[in-house]
């Protein structure tokens, strides 16, 4: 299969070029499904070891064995892009995937979020992640599994708590409150200076007022802990920054999922349609896989309780290209992320065609369609994506004794944090911060609650 697929890939690239797709080179690799599984779990081909990946791995392994999910491709944008294809999938499936990957590569080269991520994290994240994984493995040898795990427990738990609007190599806060403008030299001060007598003691520059840390509530918990944890070792800081950097890299993939998958689906469909070099049988099978991938429903069902991002993105892009042509679509590809894409281009008419609805599921299992209103559809679709999908927790204060005070923006999130999990996370943080950590949130009735780790629990 490898040779034929390589042939097709070359022809697809040729065709893609003539259709105006523009991308950095793509490095295709056929790998065994076990490797695919690992790549999709770790998010990167080689990444730091942590037991939580093991849990996901086994869970996914069970799912795959039961036939509930099939992984088609994993692609890592960069220069070159790295695409992994499963060597157990059929030639037709892999032909489709090859075309699909070209769509992703085009997207990753032009979308603003991806471009920024590349500026910040570089174009060789796969290699960098492997290097960091090796450093962490060396740290395990040097400092012991327990110590490294303690740091990773905390860093990976806070993986989503970064501030993507800041630079990766972000400077610490100014130590002093910036001073006000110098007092203008007026008549009095010049006469005062000219007074006879002993020369004034050489005046040291007066240290300004120390600026509070953090100056404003800080959302980038990973950065804050790496920067300000009272007793963090250098190797521990390095781990925190490694997790943070990978998190920056993942953000565009997360925030553009609908757009990106839709764009790739549009282009694989188009490339397939125009691929005259494909034998009939391969073409038919590939088109069939395509319609499975972009089908909103699983199997024979006519109803789904989640919107398939492939289908949704594909449908929106088709509509855009119909109305504005490919050039218009390219502008949108460059500038939007899922938030803008869904809000601006999923209109009531399209939602109606796609039969989208908002449902409400009660715990006991009763599910009711509550709305078809376009505004609430937008918000429901995007709700899991806000703030990298995590509750908004920020550092509000670092006390003089080193106590870290976190605040959960429960008003924005609509309800409080899950206490059990929050306390566990505080515990993770405490083991690295090594000073008490407290968190303000609310309980289910909206009354404020303070959770603590490492502090005297009696007060």
């Amino acid at each position: 299969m490898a040779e034929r697929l390589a042939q097709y890939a070359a022809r697809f690239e040729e065709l893609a070029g003539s259709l105006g797709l523009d991308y950095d080179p793509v490095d295709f690799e056929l790998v065994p499904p076990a490797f695919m599984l690992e790549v999709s779990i770790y998010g990167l081909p080689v990444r730091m070891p942590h037991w939580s990946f093991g849990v996901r791995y086994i869970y996914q392994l069970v799912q795959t064995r039961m036939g509930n999910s099939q992984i088609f491709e994993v692609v890592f944008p960069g220069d070159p892009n790295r695409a992994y294809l499963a060597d157990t999938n059929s030639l037709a499936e892999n032909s489709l995937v090859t075309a699909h990957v070209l769509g992703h590569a085009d997207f990753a080269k032009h979308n603003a979020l991806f471009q920024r991520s590349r500026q910040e994290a570089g174009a060789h994240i796969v290699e960098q992640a492997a290097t960091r994984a090796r450093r962490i493995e060396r740290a395990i040898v040097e400092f012991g599994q327990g110590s490294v795990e303690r740091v990773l427990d905390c860093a990976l738990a806070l993986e989503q708590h970064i501030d993507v609007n800041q630079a990766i190599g972000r400077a610490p806060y100014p130590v002093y409150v910036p001073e006000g403008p110098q007092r203008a030299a007026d008549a009095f001060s010049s006469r005062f200076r000219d007074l006879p007598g002993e020369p004034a003691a050489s005046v040291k520059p007066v240290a300004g007022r120390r600026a509070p840390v953090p100056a404003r509530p800080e959302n980038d918990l990973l950065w804050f802990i790496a920067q300000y944890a009272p007793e963090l070792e250098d190797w521990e800081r390095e781990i925190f920054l490694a997790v943070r950097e990978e998190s920056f890299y993942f953000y565009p993939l997360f925030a553009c999922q609908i757009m990106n998958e839709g764009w790739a689906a549009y282009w694989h469909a188009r490339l397939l349609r125009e691929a005259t070099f494909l034998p009939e049988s391969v073409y038919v099978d590939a088109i069939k896989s395509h319609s499975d991938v972009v089908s909103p429903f699983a199997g024979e069902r006519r109803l789904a309780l989640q919107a398939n991002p492939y289908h949704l993105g594909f449908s929106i892009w088709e509509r855009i290209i119909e109305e504005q042509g490919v050039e218009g679509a390219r502008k949108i590809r460059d500038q939007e992320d899922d938030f803008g894409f869904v809000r601006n281009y999923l209109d009531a008419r399209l939602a109606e065609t796609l039969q989208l609805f908002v449902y409400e599921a009660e715990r006991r299992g009763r599910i009711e369609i509550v709305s078809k209103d376009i505004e609430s559809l937008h918000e429901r679709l995007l709700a899991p994506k806000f703030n990298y999908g995590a509750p908004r927790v920020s550092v509000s204060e670092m006390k003089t004794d080193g106590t870290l005070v976190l605040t959960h923006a429960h008003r924005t999130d609509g309800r409080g944090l899950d206490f059990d999990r929050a306390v566990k996370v505080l515990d993770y943080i405490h083991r690295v911060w090594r000073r008490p950590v407290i968190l303000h949130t609310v309980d289910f009735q909206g009354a404020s609650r303070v959770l603590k780790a490492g502090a005297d629990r009696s007060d």
Partner: protein
Amino acid sequence: MSETRQWYDLFSRGARDWLRHNEKIRDAVRRELPDLIAGSDLISRPDNRAVQVPVRFLEHARFRLQDSDTRMGVGQGEGQTGDVLTPVDSGRDGAAKAAGQGEGELSFLLEFKTDDIIDWVWEEFKLPHLKPKLSPAMAGDDWVREGWDRRGARARLDRRRTLKEAVKRRAVEPAGPAFVDEDLRFRQLARRPRPISAAAVFFVLDVSASMEESQRRLAKTFFFWALQGIRRQYARVETVFIAHTVRSWEFGEDEFFQVKGEGGTVASTAFAHALDLLHERFHPSRYNCYLFYASDGDNFTEDHHAAQRALDELVQCLSFMGYVETASDALAHFPDTEMGGLFAGLEYAGHPAASYPLNRADDIWGAIRSFFSERSRAEDGKHG
């Protein structure tokens, strides 16, 4: 497109991290172990020295919002506002998404080696280690190799040493003969007293009609852990299982706990039986002997004196005698029961005996702990 590279098959990071997760679970389980195993049916398969414990996945916690009563989402398909949908599986997983909230629902079986468990329990409870008997009265002497000499029986000639000596000698007189008498080295033996590292454990169980299934189970669990603890200390442990009603029988370990008898209780028969076996098989100079008796406390009043005599005689030959009283609905309660009284008498007389009331599974560890700490104290007192 590059070719399939075989070495991708060598990647097993997922499996590695999975094993690490299991290791963590083991640690976690270990902390809860005593509660976990006190209730479980452990020795139903005595040859399989492992216990299976069902556990759930660990969760790597993250900040998450509280669960609300209702969940909102976007779906797709035919339907109008206000329609109530029959619950269906929530479609396909779209992309290869990371495992979601289902993680906590899977559980799996972890197997623990009984020996490991015992080690943990000892660590956990800081239980002392029993010391094997070591008394001058015992003829437990042993010949051990000790040093070399120029004279000795030919059978104990150490050829390697002899050759070495010859080489050394010829280094200074190269023309000398190959071997001379001075080169010969013989292994020497010395007599050393050897501590007795064998134990014999008698388990005596009252299987009369008054003993219920749950009581037998308590006794069984106690026996099991006591035996494991003793096994830890001795190189070789022999077990004897005796069950009695008005008569007594010896059983194999397998059948022993399944035995259910009818009728009343004459404990002296079992004690006499144990005494016979003791004399027959286990010479006190070769074995540390332990006896555990489990009963609900009843015994025929007519048997009082016979039982007392048998116990008196038995306790002379034993390192220790333990009595486990499982709760019963009888009028008398520990230690006012017939058997409770007898053992209390032995203890009072300064014999190595003790009694443990067992009412619930929770009591087992207390009993085990007090057994081993008392034993260790008693033996320290004897020798130290």
